[in-house]
């Protein structure tokens, strides 16, 4: 062995047993397939989008109307509607998911905990068409009164404004139906279990040592949660919310059942009519011609990119959270 050999790092190698080799290859193959599938969906949508993007260019993102018969298609109103519905779902769903997760993880009696977890999981298992039906037949007739109240008292804020007189004795109920607000409420039901499960997971992982440290200093339970559990769960709170946002952006059936399609860019979420990307695709897909199909697939491509981006950010936050990296000496 020469001096040079000793001076440079050795190449380390090892021999794997045949069983180990086989398992590694199978696992790598299956893992790779998932990545290839996701990439191929994106590639397919992107490829299908080329003719449309080529034809309409940037106006595809600035045009609000969707009139393929008149050769006018654009996503701007639809994207605004998509974001509005998703934000309503988050604004309503976030506090509910957070409080539910804190209650289950910190306050619920031990013997009830399992039941609550199962119930939340069950909530996630309910098909979203059920939430759509529930939203349409049960929620909407009740919610229009809430919408009216909001319009009466907060109508001076643009998002709560409705183009009708909410104070009129025979108020125009139909002006308050089929809105982004009501669709958002139904969508929130589909995202709460997801956000709640992620948050509960990180809260439950808050280290016992730090919890006891806070309690031993004379902290109240809430003080302990504020200083230990919530800072520890921060990544999970943000990540769970982003996952919920990703889900809300793509939610289709619950929205489709509730909204009535409207293609104008408007911020008043309480007023009748809106449109979301996924509902647009689901609604028009059946009777689309070849050119229209390409436009719809382009909308799908935009939605795909949007949700992929949101979910990637969510994954980064969830992975960054301190779970599993508790104080080691």
């Amino acid at each position, binding site marked *: 062995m020469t001096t040079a050999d000793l001076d440079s790092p050795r190449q380390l190698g090892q021999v794997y047993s045949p069983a180990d080799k086989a398992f590694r290859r199978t696992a790598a193959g299956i893992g790779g397939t998932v990545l290839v599938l996701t990439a191929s969906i994106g590639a397919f949508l992107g490829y299908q989008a080329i003719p449309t993007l080529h034809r309409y260019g940037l106006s595809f993102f600035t045009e609000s109307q969707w009139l393929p018969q008149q050769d006018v298609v654009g996503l701007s109103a639809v994207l605004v509607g998509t974001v509005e519905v998703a934000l309503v779902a988050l604004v309503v769903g976030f506090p509910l998911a957070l409080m539910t997760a804190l209650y289950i993880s910190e306050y619920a009696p*031990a013997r009830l905990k399992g039941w609550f977890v199962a119930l939340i999981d069950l909530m996630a298992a309910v098909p979203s068409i059920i939430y759509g039906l529930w939203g349409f037949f049960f929620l909407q007739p009740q919610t229009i009164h809430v919408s009216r109240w909001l319009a009466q008292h907060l109508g001076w804020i643009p998002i709560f404004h409705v183009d009708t007189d909410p104070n009129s004795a025979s108020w125009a109920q139909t002006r308050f139906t089929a809105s982004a607000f009501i669709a958002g409420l139904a969508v929130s039901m589909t995202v709460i279990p997801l956000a709640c499960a992620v948050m509960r997971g990180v809260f439950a992982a808050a*280290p016992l*040592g*730090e919890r*006891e*440290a*806070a*309690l*031993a*200093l*004379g*902290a*109240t339970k809430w*003080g*302990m949660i504020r*200083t*230990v559990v919530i*800072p*520890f769960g921060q990544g999970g709170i943000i990540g769970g919310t982003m996952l919920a946002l990703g889900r809300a952006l793509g939610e289709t059936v619950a929205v489709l059942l509730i909204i009535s399609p409207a293609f104008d860019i408007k911020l008043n979420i309480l007023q009748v009519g809106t449109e979301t990307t996924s509902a647009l695709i689901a609604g028009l897909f059946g009777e689309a011609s070849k050119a229209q199909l390409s436009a719809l697939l382009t909308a799908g491509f935009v939605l795909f990119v949007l949700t992929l981006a949101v979910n990637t950010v969510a994954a980064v936050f969830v992975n960054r959270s*301190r779970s599993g990296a508790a*104080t080691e*000496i």
Partner: protein
Amino acid sequence: MSTIDLLEDSLAHSAPGSSAVGIDAVDVSAWFGSNKVLERVNLSMPPRTVTALIGPSGCGKSTFLRILNRMHESIPSAKMAGEVRLNGEDIYAPTVRITHMRKRIGMVFQKPNPFPAMSIAENVTAGLKLTGTKASRAEKAEIVERCLQRGGLWNEVKDRLDQPGQALSGGQQQRLCIARSLAVNPDVLLMDEPCSALDPTSTRRVEETIAELAPDVTIVIVTHNMQQAARVSQQCAFFLAEQGTPGGIVESGTTKQVFDNPHDPRTSDYVSGRFG
């Protein structure tokens, strides 16, 4: 005067070292579920004294320690009987607010547990915030310096008080935790094997800290290290749980007597290293 008034009264004292508060366990028993782990333990831990609790693993000494500041009951299925008297008042009385009690009876854990989201200085003052104690910026700075000095950490961290507490070494973290418990002016400081995760040098620093605190604070320390018990404590209690029976105190007295002239042969066997 009600119990609460008495507590508020003694909470009002702010000067360190003004306390002369002992803690007494009277007929303390403990269970986990239906499993009895402590049987009628009586022990008086006088003010300004370091009391060491020694004994083999599983003899109930940590459980006993956690009963002294009501941390025991935070475990589901944990139960206790008997009384723990702080300055003569039962800390388990229904009129007592548990957060007040825990503030007066501080605890240092086996594994250093600084709050990772907080800086060194914030860790020290965490107890003030958690107990809703108001303090001005200047007062806080003074508390941080005083407590870190009493914890024997000031010289090592005075130039980097705004750095995260977790960046410290294990031994420094443990002294930070001691400083943190001192910031709320406890009358009693409970230490659950505070050196078991530390290297010999850090252990020596913590032992020095204990010796410096002893004139001001009543200290109860659980330790597996017999030499440590002999070095730091004036009083010693030997716990033992014989097969299938709940733990209890075999012998207690001055550390010198327990180590040099034990009355019970089991104590003699343990302190001379014949078992455990």
